């Protein structure tokens, strides 16, 4: 996922970008805290219990939810399982190669997962079929299809939208204690809608929703996940630069503001909260 570029070009591009940002503008004309257009389509994969295709500008990702009956982890016998995986497909950019997820894809999956889990979006205690023995396992796989920056938010919105619209089978326990799948469906037990807001620090400026070009020159990346109550529930700083103490606080403020906008889009698209 690392682009090859000459050092000279890199420095020139960065200087130009910092110059532009110092005037409060970005190369694509957006304001510092503007998202690119966010387009979300749900129920795009009929064979999955839930699915969503999300684009943020030219970045495209797709997430699918599969539900299986499984055993709980020994240390959480009263909770269902939630497993988030991310793959950056080789078709997504000239810089991606086939193979098992690298550290970038693993970090991506784990940060998306952390946002869902820490916000308590899904009430995992309601996914238990037989305490300590059988629970629902919710697998969410998110594939990156076309890369133009800000995979963290795109992947997160796809996962959240797929979970919000998932139609999962109902189960009952037979007299013999066996789990039986019914031909009825229900929604996942949703408690909140966590929204990921990712910012890049370039020079001394924080911008929201970086493009691939902006990511190439950013000093640091920070992702904050905000729940429906406006609380922080997950965070991750990335890249080889640092943030000042003030910047981390500013990032929190930005995230709280922007998360509201995005949450409204997701609610509208998924119909969540409507009777």
């Amino acid at each position, binding site marked *: 996922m690392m682009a090859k570029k000459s050092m000279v070009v890199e420095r020139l591009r960065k200087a130009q970008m910092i110059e532009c940002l110092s005037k409060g503008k970005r190369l694509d004309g957006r304001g510092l805290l503007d998202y690119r257009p966010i387009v979300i389509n749900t129920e*795009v*994969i*009929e*064979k*999955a219990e839930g*699915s969503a295709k999300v684009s943020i500008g*030219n970045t*495209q990702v*797709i997430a*699918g*939810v*599969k539900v*299986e009956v499984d055993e709980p982890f020994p240390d959480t016998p009263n909770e269902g399982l939630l497993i988030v*995986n991310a*793959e950056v*497909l*080789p*078709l*997504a*950019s*000239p810089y991606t190669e*086939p193979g*098992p997820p690298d550290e970038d894809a693993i970090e991506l999956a784990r940060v998306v997962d952390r946002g869902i889990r820490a916000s308590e979006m899904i009430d995992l205690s309601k996914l238990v079929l037989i305490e300590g023995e059988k629970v629902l396992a919710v*697998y969410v*796989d998110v*594939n990156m*299809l*076309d*890369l*133009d920056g800000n995979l963290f938010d795109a992947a997160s919105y796809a996962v959240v939208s797929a979970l919000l619209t998932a139609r999962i089978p109902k189960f009952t326990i037979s007299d013999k204690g066996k789990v039986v799948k019914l031909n009825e469906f229900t929604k996942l037990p949703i408690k909140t809608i966590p929204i990921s807001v990712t910012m890049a620090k370039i020079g001394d400026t924080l911008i929201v929703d970086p493009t691939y070009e902006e990511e190439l020159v950013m000093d640091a990346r920070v992702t904050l996940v905000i729940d429906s109550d406006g609380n922080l529930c997950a965070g991750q700083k990335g890249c080889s630069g640092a943030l000042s103490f003030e910047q981390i606080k500013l990032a929190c403020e930005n995230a709280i503001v922007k998360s509201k906008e995005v949450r409204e889009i997701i609610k509208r698209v998924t119909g969540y909260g409507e009777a």
Partner: protein
Amino acid sequence: MRKLIDENGLRVDGRRVDELRPIKIEVGVLKNANGSASIELGKNKIIAAVYGPKEVHPKHMARPDRSLLRCRYHMSPFSTETRKSPAPSRREVEISKVIREALEPALILEDYPRTAIDVYIEVLQADGGSRVASITAASTALADAGINMRDLVTGCAVGKVDGQIVLDLNDIEDKEGEVDMPIAIMLNLNQITLFQLEGILTPEEFKKAFEMALEGCKKIYQIQREALIKKYFGSSEPIPVE
């Protein structure tokens, strides 16, 4: 075993024995790729992307007289009824190989010495015939990438269900039917580039199945052409074949 063809000669999805499923091809669906195409064939949803001609890594794999064609057919974990592990299965390894060998005869690889051309196919949703749909999409994506080609490659499966030869098997027919025979051809050159067979056919049935598959390919070829024309000439109207 349920009946797969009813008394009126109609199949489980209402098609006649020689009828294709609905098919839709779109060209240029990815920004980063040098060429790309998506295909929907029944419930199949597949994206193919082409990167190249490009430098080869590691270098010792480069061929001095032609381009190195590489191909990866991969199914998304959510593409199947039961979740599929993202690690490539033996089935995916074999299909990647036969797809590469189905595309290669159509490509003028000699025009791009010391380079590589990568074809990446992602099956977002799998239905019967995903490998032939993948070939159709991939050859369209190769055309979109501007790679010199002798012809488009068009794939179509044929099979035997309830004792009858049928075109373009869906998932149920693939799993419960007796025979699956996917082929791919270069229509204008009368050449077969993919041929696989699984299941018992008499020599006469084989001939009939083969002819039916050719007819299917002819129809799909038109849709490939239209999709390319739509992207490059802004029209989806069929243009008469030269």
